[in-house]
């Protein structure tokens, strides 16, 4: 089933159709939520709330567009609320997996995953959206509400920090 069809069925009253969207996007949602919130339980809560927000707001979704970028805005809001709750833990958590490739050994890939887990949440978010979602600078700028130049600069500094973490210059 394609996303647009699932959304149409859901809007016509078949709430089971939403299962398709949850199953298709929950891995991405949990990874991004973990990047922003910092712990598994908080990420699961935020993702679950975001999916419920999506059901409530589905009438405003344009089926001609991609589902995940629209959903990501809801998820991000939920993550910020989750982070502002007292007692929310800020742990470094592995948010990605990786295949050894591009000349990188399995060990290098593991170092990279650990380093991403140690980035600050805003930097981690940018790196994941750029490299896992493949969003362009313009898409990052529009969807995160920051100027294009700031996207470039923040990505640059996030990657430099990643390099420092991997090379052990930063502990």
């Amino acid at each position, binding site marked *: 089933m394609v996303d647009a069809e699932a959304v149409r069925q859901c809007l016509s009253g078949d*709430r*089971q159709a*939403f*299962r398709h969207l*949850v*199953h298709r996007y*929950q*891995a*991405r*949602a*949990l*990874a991004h939520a973990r990047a922003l919130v910092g712990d*598994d*339980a908080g990420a*699961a*809560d935020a*993702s*679950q*709330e975001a*999916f*419920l927000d999506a*059901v*409530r707001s589905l009438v405003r979704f344009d089926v001609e567009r991609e589902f995940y970028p629209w959903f990501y805005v809801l998820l991000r809001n939920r993550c910020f609320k989750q982070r502002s709750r007292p007692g929310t833990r800020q742990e470094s958590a*592995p*948010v*990605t*997996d*990786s*295949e*050894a*490739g*591009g*000349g*990188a050994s399995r060990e*290098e*890939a593991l170092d*990279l*995953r650990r380093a*991403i887990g140690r980035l600050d949440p805003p930097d981690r978010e940018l*790196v*994941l959206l*750029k*490299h*896992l979602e493949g969003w*362009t*600078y313009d898409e990052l700028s529009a969807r995160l509400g920051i100027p294009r130049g700031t996207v*470039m*600069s923040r*990505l*640059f500094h996030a*990657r*430099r920090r*990643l*390099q420092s973490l*991997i090379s052990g210059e930063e502990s």
Partner: protein
Amino acid sequence: MTNAPHTDCDDVLIAAMSELDRETDGARPAWIHAHLSGCRGCRDAVAGMTRMHESLEHLTYVAPGVDLWPAVEARLLPVGRSASRETLALALIVPAALVWRALQVSLDLPLPVWNVVVPLAAAVIVLRWLAGDPLAISVSTPELQQEGA
């Protein structure tokens, strides 16, 4: 006046990174070439970034350890029920107002009873029906999940 106004290493590296991200069209500008040919630090940095960029391109998502659907589904039903109750309440407002007005005209009750007590009682009953008992102790699904985790 120099022909290479961009000599700041950060500017060069940001531009080089845009190339790696395939965000530029066309060939590498001459000012980047000029800077890189004379700056060993930037050449090394670009080489390191290129290698890291390749590794980043191989990232994948961790398979989720939990399935969110059962919890979402459990909370979808109350959402649907609440929405249908709201729709019904809205649909009943006009007939209820007409009945109230008809009773006002036909029965001779004191004005405060008609204009204050009856609408207030009706509002309390409808709100309680829509939102549930405000004094009831409820536990939300996320709280239950956290306790179970």
